[in-house]
């Protein structure tokens, strides 16, 4: 199956465990492609893109308690904890709380918010036990995924409910004290043609301890429930229906103003987010081996964060068809429609105009994987998309994969991707700084959205090499050269002086614009070494150089800071050791160089997990995170949100299946 129907990998359901295959229907089995070795590296042989797959076993053995910590294991993904409930996560640079160049999907549902361009990671608190795998695609994926898949795509795929039958309960408690409790149950209905599971999860994270002994006021709690059901409607048709509901609340420590100002003491504020989604997908396989997929979802949330209430409602319809035309062409095409409504009521500090806005997004795409020669594949495709802000956008790509032997693949790709403007860039009015500069005289800095804000554009060139060197060693190397244009900047305008009842206000308007560009290059290396049947070692390294430039007419200072939010060198190594068939001892060491803008110093992080299996149904594990230091600053402050250090913690977890 690892057929890259999509850009890339869309296609894959790699990790069919043997139990998974046993649950497939006869028709599905007849549609399974045989790979010579059932290792993911082998299935990647035709994929001309930088892909890293995190499997469910990798997730379990990482000891991670949340999704951001899981993503750390993919080389080239930059994960930094801002405070206990907010993260800055990106791929290939431009990291921020609202990293806007990485598209994140959960079972085909986009969780990238169009109001502020970014992902609220706290809202993605599904049980990690339900994740089948996470496909991390570094580099553009826009030809298939569309706008905002600029620097990468993170595609989270949950298990079929057929694979989660019976009950599962887990509870963990840490020294902080944080806790996480989860209960899941799955069963079958309609004489085995349908399966379902439902879960509920409750988690609490304590406030961070600051070096001064004070509290970081960033603790939070969340409750998350959901279900998934999978039905075999006929030998050729399957239907999935799934949904989630969540409610999160916590506190954060913030400043009033986005930039340093006198008399702006930190204060704690509560935040809350709640929402839900419902998704349905129908797959149909035709006799000739072509297949079709029709998906619809509705997603909604309300959020009150940094004192700003917002709500978003999205309905999305997506159709895809995959056909094999002759022996040389493997074509996937599709079309989609999305309508989204965001409401940001006028606030004291930040407003969007209009407050209530509904936008439509239409797209269509086609991609053809052509077998040019026996072991040479050329994949050509483009997306054509129409958005409400910049009209038509084209996102073409050309990818070439050459597998001279079964065990190695060379690939190269050229692609264009765009990030479409957010509502904020188009229509924000934000007071970001306000302080007295004299008697009865205030200086106010006001950021204004720009209705003529362009899409940011990337032209990207990548090469890669993958090899299964020996039976026990595989290597994946990628190099990229990325040219960005029309990057977002904020441009100070001439001050305006206004006389008001309280005196004189000097307003410095700062207008959103696209006066930035950047030339980035780098490499990512992942090695997988099976030292023995009991011990696996996985080192990873990434290098990234960001060179941002401003138009001579620009007065922006934000882009260079954003561009500097990327450690040039990062290194990590995971070690997975089976001490016996019941005892596992796993470690991960990360090292991040300091950020070029000096925001954070270099740091190392060590996580360790020891797990003991008691019989068939119970596992007890003890996990230590951030073991090297009591506190580690991973990101620092970001505008008016104050960062808190990641805390050393040790927790115990028990998982019981029944």
């Amino acid at each position, binding site marked *: 199956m690892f057929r890259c129907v999509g850009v890339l990998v869309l296609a894959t*359901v790699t990790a069919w465990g043997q139990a998974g295959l046993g649950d497939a229907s006869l028709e599905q089995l007849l549609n*399974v492609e*045989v790979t010579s070795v*059932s290792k993911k590296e082998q299935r990647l042989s035709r994929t001309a893109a930088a892909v890293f797959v995190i499997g469910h076993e990798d997730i379990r053995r990482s000891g991670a308690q949340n999704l951001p910590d899981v993503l750390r294991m993919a080389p080239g993904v930059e994960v930094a904890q801002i405070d206990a409930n907010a993260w800055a996560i990106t791929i290939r640079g431009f990291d921020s709380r609202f990293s806007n160049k990485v598209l994140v999907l959960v079972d085909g549902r986009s969780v990238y918010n169009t109001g502020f361009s970014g992902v609220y990671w706290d809202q993605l608190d599904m049980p990690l036990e339900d994740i089948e795998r996470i496909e991390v695609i570094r580099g553009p994926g826009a030809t298939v995924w569309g706008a905002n898949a600029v620097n990468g795509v993170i*595609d989270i795929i949950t298990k079929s409910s057929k694979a989660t039958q019976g009950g599962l309960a887990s509870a963990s408690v840490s020294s902080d004290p944080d806790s996480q409790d989860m209960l899941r149950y799955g069963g079958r209905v309609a004489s085995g043609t349908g399966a379902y599971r439902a879960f509920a999860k409750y988690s609490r994270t304590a406030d961070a301890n600051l070096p001064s002994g004070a509290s970081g006021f960033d603790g939070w709690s969340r409750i998350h429930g959901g279900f998934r059901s999978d039905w075999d409607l006929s030998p050729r048709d399957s239907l999935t229906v799934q949904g989630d509901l969540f409610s999160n609340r916590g506190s954060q420590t913030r400043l009033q103003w986005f930039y340093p100002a006198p008399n702006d003491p930190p204060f704690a504020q509560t935040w809350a987010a709640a929402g839900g989604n419902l998704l349905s997908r129908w797959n149909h396989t035709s006799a000739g081996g072509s297949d079709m*997929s029709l998906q619809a979802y509705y997603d909604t949330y309300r959020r009150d964060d940094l004192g700003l209430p917002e709500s978003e409602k999205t309905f999305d319809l997506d159709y895809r068809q995959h056909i094999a035309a002759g022996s040389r062409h493997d074509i996937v095409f599709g079309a989609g429609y999305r309508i989204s409504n965001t409401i940001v009521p006028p606030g004291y500090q930040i407003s969007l105009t209009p407050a209530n806005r509904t936008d439509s997004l239409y797209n269509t795409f086609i991609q053809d994987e052509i077998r040019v020669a026996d072991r040479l594949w050329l994949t050509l495709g483009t997306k054509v998309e129409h958005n409400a802000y910049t009209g038509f956008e084209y996102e073409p790509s050309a990818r070439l994969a050459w597998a001279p032997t079964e065990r190695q693949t060379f690939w190269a790709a050229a692609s264009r991707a765009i990030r479409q403007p957010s509502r904020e860039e188009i229509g924000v009015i934000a007071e970001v700084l306000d302080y007295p500069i004299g008697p009865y005289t205030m200086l106010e800095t006001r950021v204004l959205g720009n209705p003529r804000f362009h899409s940011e554009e990337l032209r990207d060139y990548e090469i890669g090499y993958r090899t299964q060197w020996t039976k026990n060693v595989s290597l994946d190397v990628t190099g990229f050269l990325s040219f960005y244009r029309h990057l977002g900047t904020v441009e100070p305008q001439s001050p305006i002086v206004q006389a008001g009842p309280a005196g004189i206000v000097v307003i410095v308007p700062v207008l959103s614009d696209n006066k930035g560009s950047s030339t980035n290059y780098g490499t990512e290396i992942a090695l997988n070494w099976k030292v023995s049947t009991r011990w696996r070692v996985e080192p990873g390294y990434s290098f990234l150089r960001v060179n941002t430039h401003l138009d001579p007419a620009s007065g922006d200072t934000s882009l260079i800071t954003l561009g500097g939010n990327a450690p040039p060198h990062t290194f990590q190594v995971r070690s997975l050791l089976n001490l016996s068939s019941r005892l596992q001892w796993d470690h991960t060491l990360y090292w991040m160089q300091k950020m070029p803008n000096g925001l954070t110093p270099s740091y190392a992080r060590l996580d360790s997990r020891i797990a003991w299996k008691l019989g068939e149904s119970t596992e007890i594990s003890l996990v230590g995170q951030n073991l090297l230091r009591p506190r580690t600053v991973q990101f620092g402050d970001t505008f008016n949100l104050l960062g808190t250090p990641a805390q050393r913690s040790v927790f115990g977890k028990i998982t019981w299946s029944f």
Partner: protein
Amino acid sequence: MGFRLAAQSAGEYELKAAFLYKFASFVEWPDALSNGPLCIGVLGQDPFGPALDGVVKGKSYQGRAFEIRRFKPGQESSKCQILFIGALEPKKLREVLSRLQGAAVLTVGDVPGFCESGGMVDLGLSGNKVQLEINVEAAEKAGLHLNSRLLSLAKIVRAAPEGGR
């Protein structure tokens, strides 16, 4: 937005192990009322490794647990309901199959010409997918009833006449 379309992939014998397990629900044996374990046997070289044991682990069909047994050529294997016959020389294969004639055993193989040699189900590959070939006559002779859904997905073939090419 996007989602997966493509077929799945798996190791060849992981996949074939899943077929062996799956066949249990598409075949009726004359001893259908028995409640002993359902035996899946592997005769000759075992290509499955742990995959076959893995796929039936914890599974049952109509209340019957699965049991995996491995045989050397020449060993009595006719007590199994499903028997996978590993790669054997054509002559040896015919010998094994003729010894099983009349026994209520679903014989499965994947060597070219398996059905023509008198085997019932051939799991050979066509391209990189499994193409089912079934010798219905042989199955009927053994008193096995094959579900029509299984037959509809397979290519029906006949045994070559005795002593044929």
